[in-house]
């Protein structure tokens, strides 16, 4: 009884601010839409349109590639940083932790505009490349720019979730493996890595879901010609006034996110068990 009471405030908050809007979008997704006006009714045409029309299907697929790519890269480059943060006794540890957390202190919009300045055709990156006689490379208003920006924005989430799982792996386990004849790399590969797999998977799932719904970074770095599911929902809501199609996209994205979370949750659970057994 009492634990349930403790949950009540946050549950009310979540139900009101998350499930209600989602339910509204779900309702809209089956309404009819003709000549800019919405009519109540029941139709699946918006789902069919989104999943069969090349233009929209492409947006979905590219957003998924983007989400998988960002998820994998943040985990891959985040792992060494997390490892350093947990295992190192360096006096720079605090500074590195600050560096990792710092991006979270500034708004996504501010950080993304920073990237815009760096990646512009006359930006710092291209000036640097020009110094070596290379470039200029187009790094904004395409998926490359969006990818770079998103990896930066979501890297802390990956690092923190890997840190959490690394902390639960006692260093003595690695030492024991080395005692039993494993090299340092072997010990890492066969003991630490499998034990931290749940953290890796969580980090991936987290950045995947965040990327799938990212709006500011794709809009700012991708401009108006790069579309992701989130920017498409925005455009449909505000400019095409096609709320039913927007609703259908919301539902599809939500289902994909839930599926990925479910699958990765199962995967990390079974990988965790395998190690324990």
């Amino acid at each position, binding site marked *: 009884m009492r634990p349930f009471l403790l949950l009540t405030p946050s549950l009310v908050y979540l139900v009101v601010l*998350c499930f209600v809007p989602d339910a509204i979008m779900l309702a809209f997704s089956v309404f009819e839409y003709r000549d800019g006006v919405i009519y109540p009714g029941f139709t699946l045409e918006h789902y069919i349109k989104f999943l069969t029309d090349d233009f929209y299907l492409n947006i979905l697929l590219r957003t998924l590639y983007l989400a998988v790519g960002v998820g994998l890269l943040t985990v891959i480059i985040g792992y060494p940083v997390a490892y350093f943060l947990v295992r190192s006794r360096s006096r720079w540890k605090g500074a590195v932790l600050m560096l990792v957390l710092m991006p979270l202190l500034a708004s996504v919009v501010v950080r993304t505009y920073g990237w815009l300045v760096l990646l512009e055709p006359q930006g710092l990156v291209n000036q640097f490349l020009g110094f070596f006689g290379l470039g200029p490379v187009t790094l904004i208003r395409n998926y490359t720019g969006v990818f770079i920006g998103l990896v930066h924005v979501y890297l802390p989430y990956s690092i923190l979730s890997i840190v959490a799982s690394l902390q639960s792996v006692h260093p003595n386990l690695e030492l024991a493996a080395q005692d039993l004849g494993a090299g340092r790399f072997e010990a890492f590969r066969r003991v630490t890595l499998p034990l931290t797999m749940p953290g890796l998977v*969580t980090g991936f799932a987290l950045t995947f879901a965040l990327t799938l*719904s990212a709006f500011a970074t794709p809009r700012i770095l991708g401009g108006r*010609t790069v579309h992701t599911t989130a920017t498409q929902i925005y*455009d449909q809501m505000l*400019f095409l006034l096609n*709320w039913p199609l927007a609703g259908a996209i919301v539902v599809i994205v939500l289902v994909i996110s839930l599926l990925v979370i479910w699958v990765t949750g199962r995967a990390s659970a079974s990988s965790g068990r395998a190690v324990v057994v």
Partner: protein
Amino acid sequence: MRRRSAILAFALIISQFGLACGGFAPSGQPAAKPTLPPSGQAEPPKAAAPVAEPKAAEAPKPAAATAAPVAKPTEAAKPVAKGSGEVIVNAYSAEYEDIFNKYIKEPFERETGIKIIYDPSGSAAEDYAKIRASGGDPGWDVDAVTAQEAIQGAKEGLLLEINETNTPNLKSFYPDMRMLVGNYGVPYEIQYMSLMYHKAKVDPPPTSWEIMWDPKLKGHVLTFQFANILGVYHMIMAARLNGGSLENVEPGFQALDRLKDNLLDWPQQSTQAVVFMERGDVWAMPYWDGRAHYYVDQGLPYDFLIPKEGSIPLVNSLIIPKGAKNVENAYRFVDFWLSKEIQRSWALGYTVGPGRGDLDFPEEFKKRHITSEEDIKKMGPPDYDYIAKNRPAWTERAQRIMAR
């Protein structure tokens, strides 16, 4: 395992937040019944402080010609009643706000005692999305938008009717324009799509819209997204250039596809073009005559003109959302903006055409802006209702063409 799923679920919920906000809209209903405001200006004031304002200028004009004979000519000469409270007005940002404060807000507050709260957020299309999302109660009383939103709002029953009874000054407005916009918006200013060009880079001045497709201008041409009606107009003009029309826009989209090679950018808001003008990067683009004139006056090396193929007039409208809190003040504010004196000072201040044809302007001004019914007829106003109906599909088509 549990805890991890909880964290994940939380992250997911947070990530879905931005996607899922919105509200119920009373969609698809027939237009709402006209709600008449509690008598505002139309009624003779009881305890009026006699302020001698040029409202009297309207007195000699007979109100016979058009319909509703509700507002008697004599009433126009009445002294102005002091009001109270506030009216929340949503319009545009940047230079528009400064000009609004000077030519509308300041005289209105002085004359009526009603306070204006100005909200510059959102483009016309974004404002409309908010009106729809809130079921006609977006938190403001009057909104400056284009004719398209006024027509769309009437269709979805989200606006209050604005007619000669509740807004007497409307009777002097261009009847054709009023017909085009309908009874749920007033055409408070009329602009047109001009061709703006860089004086040094495009010399001699262009004579045709075709200049934008000239390979010599590669990378120095702008057009706008269809979220901005300017982009839609430009496509319609491109259709006309290539043997199409409003009803046959296929050639327009093909031309838009060809224009891609020349494009410097594809911005949404017209203010986003300013930075390209300041850098001298844009050499030719469609631009509203009001803003074009403003930036020419600011000393930028640009000028604007109507090419030989003509242009398309833009009717900007004031609308009152159905859920407006200060209805009486809203009607009063709209009527104030439509008065002869304010129409003229706004036209000169923002360098745009007024919504009525009975005003005197300097010759130089008349040459550059729409100041008479003949000007409008010459340009040929498009079927705004048809555009409103097709705009969503056109916007989608344009997205496809421009997508990478």
